[in-house]
């Protein structure tokens, strides 16, 4: 039975949870235990709940999530490395009533595409960014990312990231929080059910901010990369909570949807 065709209810059952319409049936190619899949599901659920599947465009970028256009069951554009926010700008400026989100990793957003995301925020572009921060370049096999922690070993910081060699980790939300064009900005994670529920609330608020035309919205999801961290999925969850959250504390930085209520 294909996932998307599982009925919501039958004569003798009612659904407690079924597969979201805004995901295609294509199995996701992510590694076992990778939180990309959870993030995809949350975004798809939010799109379903807001009833916006037919007017949403996903911008797939470059990184492990390059195939996002295969997974999200909406119109899609695949963008060059880092350029998602520029592509989203082009779409939003021609079709303001289309809902647009980019799905970007830390290499795409925080490294090569830093200018694009900062300036989109500065222009208060009315789209949503889902930012996956797992402190490593996953697709290219585990090199240092701008968000790699001090001392963290990667395939290009084999002795651990040092100040001299790799500089400091970059805190994207804290940078964006200084920009007035930002309407919703939050950092969440997905390492436990309570965090997953929080993350979904933030994603929904980000899309809500866009629907209300409040400006730029971004949700950073502190994520795992079990493969390049060389850990089992649960070990990765623990390392994230123990090591990453002190550098990247969970927080709602900006929420203009509240003022709107």
């Amino acid at each position, binding site marked *: 039975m294909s996932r998307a065709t599982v009925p919501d209810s039958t004569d003798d059952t009612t659904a407690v949870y079924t597969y979201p319409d805004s995901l295609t049936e294509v199995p996701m190619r992510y590694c076992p235990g990778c939180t990309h899949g959870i993030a995809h*599901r949350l975004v798809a659920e939010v799109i379903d709940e807001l009833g916006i599947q037919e007017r949403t465009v996903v911008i797939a970028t470059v990184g492990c999530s390059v195939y996002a256009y295969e997974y999200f069951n909406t119109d899609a554009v695949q963008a060059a490395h880092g350029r998602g926010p520029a592509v989203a700008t082009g779409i939003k400026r021609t079709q303001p009533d289309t809902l647009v989100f980019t799905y970007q990793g830390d290499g795409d957003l925080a490294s090569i595409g830093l200018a694009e995301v900062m300036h989109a925020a500065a222009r208060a572009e009315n789209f949503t960014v889902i930012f996956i921060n797992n402190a490593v370049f996953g697709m290219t096999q585990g090199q240092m990312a701008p968000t790699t922690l001090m001392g963290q070993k990667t395939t290009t910081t084999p002795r651990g990231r040092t100040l001299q060699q790799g500089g400091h980790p970059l805190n994207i939300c804290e940078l964006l929080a200084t920009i007035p064009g930002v309407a919703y900005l939050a950092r969440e994670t997905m390492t436990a059910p309570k965090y997953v529920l929080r993350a979904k609330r933030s994603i929904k608020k980000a899309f809500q901010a866009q629907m209300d035309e409040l400006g730029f919205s971004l949700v950073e999801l502190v994520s795992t990369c079990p493969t390049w961290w060389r850990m089992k999925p649960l070990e990765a969850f623990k390392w994230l909570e123990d090591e990453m959250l002190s550098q990247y504390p969970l927080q709602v930085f900006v929420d203009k949807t509240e003022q709107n209520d």
Partner: protein
Amino acid sequence: MFKVIIDASRCKGCGLCVHFCPQDIIELSDELNEAGYHPAHIISEEECTGCKMCVLMCPDVCIDIYKEIAEAAVND
């Protein structure tokens, strides 16, 4: 009564559902699926409370949960 359907063909055996199930009623199968993973399966469905923790944590969106209507009617 809840009915839990885990799509073994999509499951990558990451074990997150096993870990987060408060009832401890999910485990990884000894068998391999087509992709070479040990998929999760439910061992004692009658103990399921429909809490959806497994669903929340599943990165591969393999789990659907249904409530049987007869049961629902009794509860309501």
